[in-house]
């Protein structure tokens, strides 16, 4: 099936669009820094927030809207029975319909409809009880039918909203919550992939992805910066993952974002917008948008105009480049899809007798089974454990981390407020350093709880606890208690032993003792540290301080 076709006229940018397997490398080059250079203005849609430019002109306001394609997590494709699987051998998941063999017809996959309804409900949308499918025509080698089946006229869900939070302020220590309106969610087919071989002037087509179900989520232009857009996308991603309606992994192309960007002066009409494509991570999303905002401002301030065009983000150069894109201008010649009857959804009131949720899609049935959304989970975490809101964000940001935290809390007497520190500072740091997911962590919640219990009981010091944690990370199957015993990390309980150690340290550091006696109390900490070093963390610092103070005053 791999059709190889000759190719001369497609730009190399298009080629990159499909190489989703590549790990993008960011070159922190000149182009990017130039975009951040002083003189251009950090824009905020709320005019009051925008600092005035150094050139003294009226401030610019940026407007950002997003179109997000989320691949539906389903066993089979939107209109055919072929399996959906990432990175399968090329053209191994292609049904006759996916290859658009003449005479084949679409049959709608219920699971995809349910995923869209779920997502619509989670985004506070109105679910249309009747929606329609349309054909959108364009010729492209990875679009076998010459048209995409989508929902242009009457999509499955409309008029929703998404609240997201981000850190603002000079030190990024203040969280604010903003809302973006969701215009619509439509069901549509994904295309295949084109792999361009420039040396042999060939294009290889892989249709595994052709026909996979997508939800296109259209966000109104309610955002004003890359950061906001990135935060909104991150929140959407979490929601989709919570619902299970999409795996939403950007690196695997399951979540693809196009941004519409324009700038204008407050009080004036919106500027001409550009569409930025080819964004494949949340980090690049913010950069691409901010770059584009600055680029437009610069163009306008230099007396140029912004063209209504499609631009691609080049992650290597850190800038946006016009795409040689005929799609942007072409007429898609939309037409109703004649092979699919209107998609009718029911609620409990309109559900026909003797029908159940197995036969038709019942909106109420789905609504009743929606899981807790991230925003609800965060509130519950803050309420239940007394942790800070930003902690709750951090817990949800990592898949499985919240559950891990809750398990630890359940198995330990330590205050959750203290546990969170261990989770977010130690645990998460280690995971990040070793590039592991929570599930892959060699330290289970039970082991960590055991460790924290030792600490809480006063059996070990916190610095000893860190050592034990380090040992646990090796994953050798030892319990914290075993490690403590082996390494002799228990706190020294014997008062006499303690006194001797302190005495020895003081004798070895007469200068410091003199200093303290002269009144420089700060040096005391040095002595405490020395005691700790001698005991390899086995001394209770409170006790050490007491003993040292007692002896110094003698």
């Amino acid at each position, binding site marked *: 099936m791999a059709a190889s076709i000759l190719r001369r*006229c497609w730009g190399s940018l298009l080629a990159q669009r499909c190489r989703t397997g590549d790990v993008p490398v960011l070159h922190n080059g000149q182009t990017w820094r130039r975009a951040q250079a002083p003189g251009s203005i950090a824009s905020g849609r709320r005019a009051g927030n925008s600092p005035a430019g150094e050139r003294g002109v009226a401030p610019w306001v940026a407007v950002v809207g997003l179109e997000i394609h989320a691949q539906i997590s389903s066993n089979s494709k939107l209109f055919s029975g072929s399996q959906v699987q990432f990175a399968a051998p090329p053209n191994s998941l292609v049904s006759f319909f996916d290859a658009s063999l*003449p005479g084949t017809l679409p049959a709608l996959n219920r699971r995809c409809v349910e995923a869209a309804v779920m997502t619509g409900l989670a985004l506070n949308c109105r679910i249309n009880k009747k929606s329609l499918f349309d054909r959108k*025509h364009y010729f492209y080698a990875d679009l076998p039918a010459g048209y995409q089946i989508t929902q242009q006229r009457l999509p499955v869900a409309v008029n929703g909203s998404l609240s997201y939070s981000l850190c603002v302020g000079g030190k990024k220590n203040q969280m604010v919550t903003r809302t973006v309106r969701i215009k619509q969610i439509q069901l549509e087919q994904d295309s295949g992939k084109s792999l361009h071989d420039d040396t042999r002037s060939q294009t290889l087509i892989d249709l595994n992805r052709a026909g996979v179900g997508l939800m296109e989520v259209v966000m109104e232009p309610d955002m004003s910066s890359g950061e906001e857009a990135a935060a909104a996308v991150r929140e959407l991603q979490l929601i989709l993952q919570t619902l299970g309606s999409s795996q939403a992994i950007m690196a695997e192309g399951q979540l693809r974002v196009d941004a519409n960007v324009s700038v204008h002066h407050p009080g004036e009409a919106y500027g001409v917008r550009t569409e930025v494509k080819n964004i494949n991570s949340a980090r690049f999303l913010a950069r691409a948008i901010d770059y584009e905002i600055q680029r437009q401002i610069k163009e306008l301030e230099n007396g140029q105009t912004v063209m209504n065009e499609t631009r691609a983000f080049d992650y290597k150069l850190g800038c946006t480049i016009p795409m040689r894109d005929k799609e942007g201008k072409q007429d898609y010649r939309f037409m109703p899809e004649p092979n699919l009857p209107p998609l009718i959804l029911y609620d409990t009131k309109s559900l026909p007798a003797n029908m159940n949720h197995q036969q038709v899609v019942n909106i109420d049935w789905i609504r009743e089974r929606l899981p807790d959304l991230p925003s609800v989970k965060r509130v519950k975490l803050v309420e239940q454990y007394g942790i800070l809101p930003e902690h709750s964000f951090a817990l949800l940001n990592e898949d499985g981390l919240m559950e891990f935290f809750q398990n630890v809390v359940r198995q330990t007497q330590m205050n959750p407020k203290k546990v969170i520190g261990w989770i977010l500072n130690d645990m998460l740091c280690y995971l990040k350093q070793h590039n592991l997911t929570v599930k892959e962590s060699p330290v289970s919640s039970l082991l960590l709880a055991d460790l924290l219990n030792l600490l809480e009981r006063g059996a070990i010091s916190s610095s000893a606890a860190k050592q034990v944690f380090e040992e646990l990370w090796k994953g050798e199957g030892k319990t914290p208690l075993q490690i403590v015993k082996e390494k002799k990390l228990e706190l020294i309980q014997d008062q006499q032993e303690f006194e001797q150690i302190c005495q020895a340290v003081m004798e070895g550091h007469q200068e410091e003792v003199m200093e303290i006696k002269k009144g420089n109390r700060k040096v005391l900490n040095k002595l405490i540290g020395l005691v700790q070093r001698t005991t390899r963390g086995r001394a209770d610092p409170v006790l050490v301080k007491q003993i040292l103070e007692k002896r110094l005053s003698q």
Partner: protein
Amino acid sequence: MLRVSLREISAALKEGQVTPTELCQRCLSFIKATKFLNAYITIAEETALKQAEESEERYRRGQILGDLDGIPVAVKDNFNTAGIETTCASNMLKGYIPPYNATVVQKLLDQGAVLLGKTNLDEFAMGSGSTDGIFGPVRNPWSYSRQYRDKCVQNSHPEKEDSNWLITGGSSGGSAAAVSSFTCFAALGSDTGGSTRNPAAHCGVVGLKPTYGLISRHGLIPLVNSMDVPGILTRCVDDAAIVLGVLAGHDPKDSTTVQDPFKSFELTCFTDASKLCIGIPKEYHAPGLSSETLALWSKAADLFENAGAKVIEVSLPHTRYSVVCYHVLCTSEVASNMARFDGLEYGHRSSMDKSTEVMYAATRREGFNDVVRGRILSGNYFLLKQNYENYFIKAQKVRRLIAKDFVNVFHSGIDVLLTPTTLSDTIPYVEFIKEDNRTRSAQDDIFTQAANMAGLPAITVPTALSEKGLPVGLQFIGRAFQEQQLLTVAKWFEKQVKFPMIQLQGIMDHGHTDSHHQKSAFFS
């Protein structure tokens, strides 16, 4: 033996008077003998004989699959047949061997039918003559009938005899010719604007277009998805009912088929016509309607009236917009459906490969004929953003009005509408090609396409011979999903008119000279 009906040959098979293999061989040799008709594009001799053998084994063991077991059938070459070339009479699909069977083909095979081959058509079923395919025009068997020849000799130039051959109508002309010339017992056609009924009428056979949504379109290479219906061509109404019973029913692969289970039926002869109400749509008294056809139409109405039925003139006021409306909707869907033929996945691919775009353009120019390309161009024009409202949306609205006309008429108590099927009897090829495909299609579909727009079932029944000795058919249009009522009326009518059997001397096996097929007493 080949001239009997499907029902009769089925009985003969069950009684052991003939074996499936004998029957298949006879049909195959007769297909070869009538090769000049150009009714078949592909003859699936090997698979047909194998199927016949398997059928024979089933008969031996007394485990036949159904009424169609061992019955030779033909299928229009726009239905996918696994392992058998499916061309749509187009360079685009020449040599294309599909990997799957259309649902209707599969259903025939599941009943034990023997698939003889694929029948000729206009390229992608776009036409009303079966003259515009890459394999050349189909010749109407009636060109070689004694009935026509006798009249020809009387009237004109015997020396031009061979150039005077007649068209079958279309686009399912191959299927109509195959049934009419006794090379098979039933054939599948497709009907988008009359493509089954038109050639059926011109070839003197029964042509049934079922209700949209009753029969699966999966595997039928589409012309206009919202109007296409697999059509059934047989030699009598009873046979059409048998085939319909096999084909009808929900198909999960075609979301536009209805969910309700279909109950196959056997047609009864109704004795009491007094409860019947026949509508005669006055708008079908159209310009160009031959006086002969008009006279037959009116005689047919009298026939019903004399039998006690109520015959009422009715109005379908939007009929006159039907042709232009059909043109917009048809070409728009054609433009869309044909987009998949880009030379990448299957079918013809041009050797011009300077760039993908050049390859697309050359592939499509080489692969499609002028008719197909012309419709693609118009369709794309109607779908342009600036034209969509003015053309496509308007046409859809008109379509709804046309459909509503029928609803109103049936609501008023009419059971079945009686209309002509075509303007006149068929004409010689040399006459037909004086007009272009577009003009012809518009003229020839005039009485048939409204049923497609409204999704209604319709059947053409051969009624009488014209003065030239050529068949004329009349059409009955029924209520949606009321095939049983429609066919019952059609069967009664068929019985009354006693349409004469075609006399194919010289072509037919010489043993049987027909004596009992005198011309109809009523309509002579």
